[in-house]
């Protein structure tokens, strides 16, 4: 039962990304072609309100549903991992038109072939796990 709240939040997430066409390959192609404001509006407004939310959580020391102070995780101050990893991610994102969230949402949408993309992404993550000691971070 304790998992129900994640399920419902996930359902909201899936509905929003589907209804705003964010899961469409066309929208990602259009974004990287700078031919519409749509995706920039979605991400930009999410970040803008996200900044207000995150900074408020920190400033007012808000507590979680369990009464613990909410922790906002910070990333390590590396450089190359973000640039190189990010670039690999961007290549794949533009190719499949899907980042990890939409891959799953698209399967529910009926594009079951994205099951293959998810398996491939798992394999990519596996490759990172195996190779990471040899990669610049």
């Amino acid at each position, binding site marked *: 039962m304790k*998992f129900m709240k*994640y*399920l419902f*939040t*996930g*359902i*909201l*997430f*899936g*509905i*929003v990304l*589907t*209804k705003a*066409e964010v899961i*469409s*390959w*066309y929208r990602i*192609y259009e974004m*990287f*072609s700078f*031919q*519409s404001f*749509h995706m920039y509006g979605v*991400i*930009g*407004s*999410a*970040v803008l309100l*996200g900044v207000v939310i995150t900074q408020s959580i920190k400033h007012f020391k808000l507590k979680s549903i369990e009464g613990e102070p*909410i922790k*906002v995780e*910070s*990333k390590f101050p590396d450089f190359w991992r*973000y640039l*190189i*990893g*990010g670039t690999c*991610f*961007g*290549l*794949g994102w*533009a*190719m499949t038109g899907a*980042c*990890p*969230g939409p*891959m799953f949402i*698209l*399967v529910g*949408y009926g594009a079951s*072939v994205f099951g*293959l993309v*998810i398996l491939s*992404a*798992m394999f*990519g*993550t*596996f490759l990172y*796990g195996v190779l990471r000691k040899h*990669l610049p971070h």
Partner: protein
Amino acid sequence: MLDWISQPWPWYVAGPLISVVMFLMLYFGKKFGVSSNLRTMCSMVGAGKVSEFFRFNWKEDIWNLVFVLGGLIGGYIAKEYLSVSESVGISEATIIQLKALGIENPGSTYLPESIFTWEALSTPKYALMLIIGGVLVGFGTRYAGGCTSGHAISGLSNLQWPSLIAVIGFFIGGLIMTHFILPFLLTT
């Protein structure tokens, strides 16, 4: 009301709702980051036997798997009950450009059917697009320590430099793919 819901949602509705999703996950004492699930799933199927990177108690991350399962259900609900049309409102310029690249009826459905169906996999280049694209996403997201949700939304919201570098990387990769590789792939 249902009339309005069944139309495509504008960016100023979707963006803030994504922030609400992020807030809810933080409020539940967790975080908003989808790609960690790929690592969890690797761990579940035994990748820990090969690399210590996958040796952790994946049962503690079931909440995140439940979240993406919800996403999947949400995709189904949105399509079956909350939509009247399958078309995507992309710009005229994009439609013209994609037609020139040989895509039929761009935007008439969510995905180009010539690429994203099981039948299309019999064309090797499309099969490779899905597989290599998927591998790049999975490899890149773990290397960079997050995807669009973890870096672009959560990370930028936390005003942290690493996420800005990652997002710049997302765009370097996305621009190279869209402007140099895809035109070549789609027309050969």
